[in-house]
């Protein structure tokens, strides 16, 4: 009974709040209609820009409350703002499908919505007196209307997806180009140079074999050392490209090997049957390796655990530690790097790290196998 009354009050309050918003929409609508022809004389451009930008927070308020009323979440359809000069950004806003749907919403909310709000207020007052009436019908209609126009539709979701893919692809290309450069440099300065030295030592030894056997022996010993060093460098390089233990034992084995080498005890548990597809395996391994390295470097933890599971087409990896906490994705380049690695495979990184710990990193990768 009390709940019902509170509910009725809530509906009335929402109708009262929605009314000025609807009235404001009417103003925005008029401004927008006026703005288009004024574009010709330039004044319209900032006018239009300002209209679009004021419109978004208002639309977001409606998304939130309409969603709460209907009981489903209404997502945001907007793309990330393009960076660049004013013209580029304006153009970005204008070609975004969500912008045009927002305009449609302004038109509807400024007219039909306005009427609904006025009727809604009257209805809300009546609802308080005549308790048997179903409460807030107008407010509900208004909410459904808002949902229909403001919720992301196929077009806006696709636009969002395309943007996301473009960004993650660009990052992937950058990262792999940098990796290739590193490998090239390592080979050039390391193994390659040593092989040249090896060849020279051997050549000299061959030449001096008859004349100066002692010196030849010294040169041969030197050649042997150089070949060992070259092998050691190649081994490190290979480990960085694709760790052999990952090829041998798969994700869990490689992670176990990694954690064995850590200076603190790390417990590894898994619910994984069989091998994952190779690209996912390697992305997951490097993300986990970075997470573990990061944790050891920064957390000051004394124990940690890693859990890996594969369920319903989603690979979930969790790194937990008892360290100092306070890890922040926006601060650490390490965490950003992990997020970047994962994003190339549509994966996500979630960090909970209250100051004082414990820190839990949860990484997911979609993976059907």
């Amino acid at each position, binding site marked *: 009974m009390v709940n019902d009354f509170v509910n009725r009050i809530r509906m009335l309050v929402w109708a009262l709040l929605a009314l000025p918003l609807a009235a404001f929409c009417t103003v925005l609508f008029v401004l927008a209609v006026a703005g288009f022809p004024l574009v010709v004389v330039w004044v319209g451009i900032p006018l239009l820009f300002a209209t679009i930008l004021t419109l978004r927070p208002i639309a977001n308020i409606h998304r939130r409350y309409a969603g709460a009323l209907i009981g489903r979440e209404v997502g945001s359809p907007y793309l990330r703002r393009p960076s660049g000069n004013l013209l580029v950004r304006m153009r970005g806003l204008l070609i975004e499908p969500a912008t045009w749907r927002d305009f449609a919403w302004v038109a509807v909310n400024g007219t039909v919505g306005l009427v609904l709000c006025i009727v809604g207020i009257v209805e809300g007052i009546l609802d308080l007196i005549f308790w048997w009436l179903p409460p807030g019908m107008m407010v509900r209609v208004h909410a459904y209307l808002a949902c229909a126009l403001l919720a992301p539709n196929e077009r806006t979701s696709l636009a969002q997806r395309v943007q996301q893919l473009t960004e993650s692809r660009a990052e992937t290309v950058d990262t792999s180009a940098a990796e290739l450069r590193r490998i090239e440099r390592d080979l050039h300065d390391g193994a390659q140079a040593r092989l040249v030295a090896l060849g020279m030592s051997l050549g000299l030894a061959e030449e001096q074999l008859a004349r100066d056997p002692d010196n030849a022996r010294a040169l041969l010993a030197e050649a042997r050392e150089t*070949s060992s060093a070259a*092998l050691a460098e190649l081994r490190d390089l290979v480990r960085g490209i694709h760790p*052999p233990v990952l090829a*041998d*034992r798969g994700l869990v084995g490689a992670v176990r*090997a990694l954690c*064995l*080498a850590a*200076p603190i005890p790390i417990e590894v548990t898994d619910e994984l049957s069989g091998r994952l597809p190779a690209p996912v395996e390697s992305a997951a391994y490097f993300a986990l390796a970075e997470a573990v390295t990061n944790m050891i470097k920064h957390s000051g933890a004394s124990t940690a655990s890693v859990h890996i599971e594969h369920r319903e087409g989603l690979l979930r990896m969790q790194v937990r530690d008892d360290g100092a906490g306070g890890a922040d994705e926006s601060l650490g380049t390490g965490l950003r790097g992990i997020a970047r690695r994962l994003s190339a495979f549509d994966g996500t990184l979630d960090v909970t790290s209250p100051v004082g710990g414990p820190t839990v990193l949860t990484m997911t990768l979609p993976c059907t196998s």
Partner: protein
Amino acid sequence: MRVVIAEDLALLRDGLIRLLEAHDFEVLEAVDNGPSLLRALTTHRPDVAVVDVRLPPTFTDEGLRAAIEARAQLPGLPVLVLSQYVEQLYARELLADRSGGVGYLLKDRVFNVGQFVDAVRQVAAGGTAMDPEVVAQLLSRRSAADEPITTLTPREREVLGLMAEGRSNAAIAARLFITEKAVSKHTNSIFARLALPPSEDDNRRVLAVLAYLNG
């Protein structure tokens, strides 16, 4: 001494055969894949086997698996595993049965023929031969602040490292240019500080050290 070799690259296989035959080993069979290795080991029962980790058909850790499987059937069968890289995980698996007679070395160690042949003989005699790189990994992992290992003197750490590689007191003494007596003084001190049960037997002592570092 009778030996079985498993190595898939013909060049290296021939090299190993030549090398071991030049040092009075009798090569019973040289195989190039995992299943044949297991069969060769169980039928020939060699004095020692020299095995490459990565073998066909899977080109993963086939050699290691075959060696472990053979040791499960013939406990204590001496096996020296060679690899292009060393992994602590694999060392731990090889040492797991604690019966000795195992070696785990980088392929590079073959270059130093004398030391390599010594290692093969040592493993054949039931000893242990761990690659210095494995030992370095184990030691660095145990270097966290509150480990008793940090109380060791630099010399004792050196001795511990050599002991973990599987070297006898005599070999350690020769390597560090000190007397065997001095070595045994160091080892006693190491065992006391790490709270390990003292043992006169070289091999059992090595296994204790490795188990401690692995733990």
